[in-house]
C-alpha cells in the first residue's frame, strides 16, 4: 500500500526540484574568458529597457518621466492633500514627450498612485505636464483627472481634528517633524501631512525638468488664530531637491479647513542659514 504512494512522493519531489530551480547555468570548462550576459539563463530584460522607443516615447523609469511624474504628485497634493491624505507616486507605467518649441515641453504620463495614510491603491491615472518654454518661468501646468481619488473619504477624521484644534486653549506648536531618527509623535502626524500638502504648492511652483523635490522636514509649526472658519498655521519647511542635493528653507502661511482644503496664503524662500562650526566636532583624541 505504501510503495505506490511513495513512488508518487518521489515523482512529486522530482517535479518539485524542477519547479524550484529556475536557474540552471550550463556547466562550463574553466576558462579565462568573461561570461557572456546570456549565460544568465532566466534573467529577462523588460521591454522598456531595450532602448528601442518610438518617437516621443520615454522610458518610464528613466529620469525625465520620473521628474514629470513627481510634479503630478505635487499637483495632486495641492488639490487633495490634507492632514489625513497624502498621495504618492507609485510607478510610471508609460510616458511620452512632445516638444512644443517656444510653448515648452509637454509630458504625457500613465502613472499609478497610492494614498499612503490609508494605504489605498488609487489605480492608474493619466496626466499631462507642461513645462513652459524658457521665456516664461511659470509653474508647470498639470492636468490629472484621476477617478481613483473618489475612493478617499477622510471627512470624519478631518472634522475631529478641526474641532480639536479650533477649540483648544493653547495654540499648537512643534518642531523637527520628523526628528533625526525619523520619529513623529502620533498627534503631530496630521500636522506633518498638512505641512507636506502646503509644501506641495511651493514644490509645484518651483519644479522644472531639472528638479526633483520632496519635503524633508517640518522644521517648525505654530498655530495662529482661526480666521474666516479656517485654521491658520505658520510653517517653516525644509525641501530637498534631489538633483542639486540642496536643502531649501521656506516659510509658509497656511490655512485649512475640512471643507476649504489647504491654502497657502504667503510663501517666503529663506536663504541658507549661516554655517555653524560647533566645537564638539573637534576630536579630543583619535577614535
Amino acid at each position, binding site marked *: 500500500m505504501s510503495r505506490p504512494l*511513495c513512488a508518487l512522493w518521489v515523482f512529486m519531489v522530482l517535479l*518539485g526540484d524542477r519547479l*524550484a530551480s529556475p536557474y540552471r547555468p550550463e556547466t*562550463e570548462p574553466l576558462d579565462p574568458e*568573461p561570461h557572456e550576459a546570456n549565460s544568465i539563463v532566466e534573467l529577462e530584460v523588460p521591454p522598456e*529597457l531595450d532602448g528601442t522607443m518610438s518617437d516621443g516615447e520615454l522610458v518610464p523609469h528613466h529620469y525625465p518621466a520620473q521628474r514629470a511624474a513627481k510634479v503630478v504628485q505635487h499637483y495632486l497634493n495641492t488639490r487633495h492633500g490634507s492632514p489625513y491624505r497624502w498621495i504618492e507616486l507609485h510607478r510610471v507605467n508609460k510616458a511620452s514627450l512632445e516638444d512644443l518649441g517656444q510653448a515648452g515641453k509637454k509630458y504625457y504620463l500613465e502613472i499609478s498612485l497610492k494614498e499612503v495614510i490609508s494605504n489605498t491603491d488609487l489605480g492608474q491615472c493619466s496626466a499631462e505636464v507642461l513645462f513652459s518654454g524658457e521665456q516664461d518661468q511659470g509653474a508647470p501646468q498639470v492636468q490629472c483627472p484621476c477617478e481613483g481619488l473618489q475612493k478617499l473619504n477622510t471627512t470624519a477624521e478631518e472634522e475631529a481634528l478641526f474641532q480639536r484644534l479650533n477649540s483648544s486653549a493653547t495654540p499648537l506648536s512643534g518642531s523637527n517633524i520628523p526628528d533625526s531618527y525619523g520619529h513623529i509623535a502620533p498627534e503631530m502626524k496630521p500636522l506633518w501631512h498638512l505641512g507636506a500638502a502646503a509644501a506641495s504648492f511651493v514644490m509645484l511652483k518651483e519644479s522644472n525638468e531639472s528638479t526633483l523635490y520632496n519635503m*524633508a522636514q517640518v522644521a517648525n509649526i505654530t498655530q495662529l488664530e482661526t480666521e474666516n472658519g479656517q485654521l491658520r498655521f505658520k510653517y517653516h519647511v525644509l525641501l530637498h531637491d*534631489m538633483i542639486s542635493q540642496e536643502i531649501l528653507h521656506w516659510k509658509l502661511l497656511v490655512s485649512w479647513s475640512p471643507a476649504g482644503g489647504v491654502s497657502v496664503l504667503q510663501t517666503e524662500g529663506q536663504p541658507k542659514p549661516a554655517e555653524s*562650526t560647533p566645537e564638539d566636532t573637534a576630536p579630543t583624541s583619535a577614535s
Partner: protein
Amino acid sequence: MRKDDIMIAAGLAFLILCVQNIDCTSDKSTQEGTPWNYDYTRYHPVSEISDWMERVVTENPELVSSSVYGETFEGRNITYLKIGLGSEGVQKKAIWMDCGIHAREWIAPAFCQWFVKEILLHYKTDKKLNEMLKNMDLYVTPVLNVDGYMYSWINESTRLWRKSRSTPPEGCTCHGVDLNRNFNANWGTVGVSRDCCHNTYCGSGPVSEKEAQAVTQFVGSRVDQILCFLTIHSAGQLLLLPYGHPHISAPNYDELMAVGQAAAKAMKAVHGMDYRVGTSPDILYPNSGSSRDWARLMGIPFSYTFELRDKGEFGHLLPEEQIQPACEEAFEGALFIITYVHDKAFHNRTEIGAASVARAFWATVLASCLATMYLL
C-alpha cells in the same frame, strides 16, 4: 514492482544530491558571535559603532579582523572590518563595501552593521556563505565619512549635512566636499558644483579629500583582487551602475544591468519594494567623480551604488521602524550580487536563495517518505 524500485532508486539518488546542497536555515534565535545586546534596529553614533566593531573582532577572531586604512580631515580613523575564513597571510579575492560616504544617509551605516550581523549569524551553518568566505574576503567600512556623520549627530540643525568637514578653500566660506564627487573619475566634468557652499562641491581637485584618498589608496592597490565594489547610500530606492557620465558606457554594461535587475527582483521579493536599476544619467542625474565610477575605471568589473529606502516620504530621515525591512531587502540585493561575482570567479553552480530553500523542503518530504516506507 520493478517500476517502483526504479522510482525509489532515482529518488534516493536525488536525495543524496539534495542533501549535499541543502541550505540549512540557521537558528536565528542564537546570537552566537554577534554582540548580542546591540540593537541593529536603531541608529548609532560613531562611538557606539566603533565599540561594536571592536567587539565583533574580539568575539569572532577566526572570521573578523579590522584595520585602519586612512584618516579623515579631522584626524579620525577610517576603519574596515575584514571578514573571511582562513585569511591569514593569503591574498584572496575580495568584495568591497562602504557605507556612510554621505553623512546624512544614516540608513547606510545601519545597513553595514546589519550586513555584518547577518554574516556572523549564518556563516557556520550556511554552506554557501561558508564557501564564499573561504574563497573571498569582505572588506566592510561601516562609516566612511566619519567627520560628516559625527557632525550630523550634533543636533537637529546639523542632521541633514552631506559632505566631509574639510575647511573652506581660499576665497570661499563653507566647509566640506561632496566625497562622492571627489574621486578621480571624470572629475569635475558633470553633475558637480565649483561653489564650496554647495552640496555637490567636488573639491579643489580630484582626490583632494583624505577620505577619498584612503579608499583610493587601499582599493587602488588591490584592484586585481577586488571582484566587486559596493557603495551604500540613501535615498531613492535605486541600483546605479557605472558610469555617471552620459557619454561613457561600461564595457560590461549588459551584464551589470542583468545582474542589477536580478538583484532588484530579489530585493522586491522581500517586502514588495521597487528598486529601479540603471546608470545614474539614465535614472537619476549625470554625475562625475563618484567612487563607483572610479572603481569601474580601475578595472573592478562589478561596481554598484545602492540607494536604499525611501522614495521621498521621509527621505534621509528614515524612521527606525524601517531599519529592519530596509536592511532585509538590501541584504538580499547585496548577497545576490556577491554570490554572482563569487560564482563567476570560481565557476561554481549558482544557488539563488529561493531555489535552495525549495530543495531543502522537497528533500525533507522525500526523506520522510522513505523513512515511512522502511518503517512499514
